[in-house]
């Protein structure tokens, strides 16, 4: 299961998954698990799409529902998702997407 250090991390991911109309990510996050390599790659790529979307929001002056900035949450979520994918056996999938950036 994906384990969050802050409850806001999950809210933040769902906030951006909804904003990006990403039904698959919403399902994965609500389930709290990925079941195969394709899902691991999908979630890893979503992370960086979320980062880009949050940066666009900041540049447009759109405020987040939380006091902390996007960089704070993106870093926390990066550790949470990559830590989970490591433990679930999908470290290579996460790393390959990092290398695409």
């Amino acid at each position, binding site marked *: 299961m994906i384990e969050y250090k802050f409850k806001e991390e999950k809210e933040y991911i769902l906030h951006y998954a909804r904003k990006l109309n990403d039904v698959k990510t919403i399902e994965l996050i609500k389930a709290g698990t990925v079941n195969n390599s394709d899902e691991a790659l999908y979630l890893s790529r979503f992370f960086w799409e979320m980062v880009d979307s949050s940066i666009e929001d900041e540049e447009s002056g759109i405020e987040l529902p939380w006091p*902390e900035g996007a*960089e704070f949450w993106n870093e926390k979520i990066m550790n949470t998702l990559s*830590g989970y994918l490591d433990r679930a056996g999908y470290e290579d999938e996460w790393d390959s997407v990092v290398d695409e950036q």
Partner: protein
Amino acid sequence: MIEQFKTINDLSAVIKEYEGMLSRPTRHLSHPTLYRTRDVGKKERVIKGVRVKDWLLSEDEKWVLPHDQMGLSFSSSYKNLKQVYKLKERHNPGKTLNIYWILEKADIPPGLKFEPDVSKKGHYFLTVTEQMLLEKLVLKLKVMAQRMSVIKGAGKTL
């Protein structure tokens, strides 16, 4: 002091050679262990350079309380540093980033300790081991910063 690396292999090799090397990227001119207002979100709270959400504080926010999974983030592996660096680079396009580092076994001020993140390998927290006034933590973080080395403009090596 190590100031610059030319290739990805240089930096990766040094991290492997220096067992217990802990690092964190920061924007050029930012402090290695404290935050300026411009380093954080507009509504994000920083007290005397300490980002409130990083630490476990007392209700009146005068004291920092011990917690082995809360504190300042550091990378202990090249892989973790690389992804943190890429994220910071994304948030700071066109800005120069530096990497500050210290050895885990070096003389870290008493009352501070590196603890591994139990849910993420390669990630560590610089934590407090005893309750202390926030001002005291700030002083310790300043002392620690003086003992850190810097890799300037490391982007091309990552």
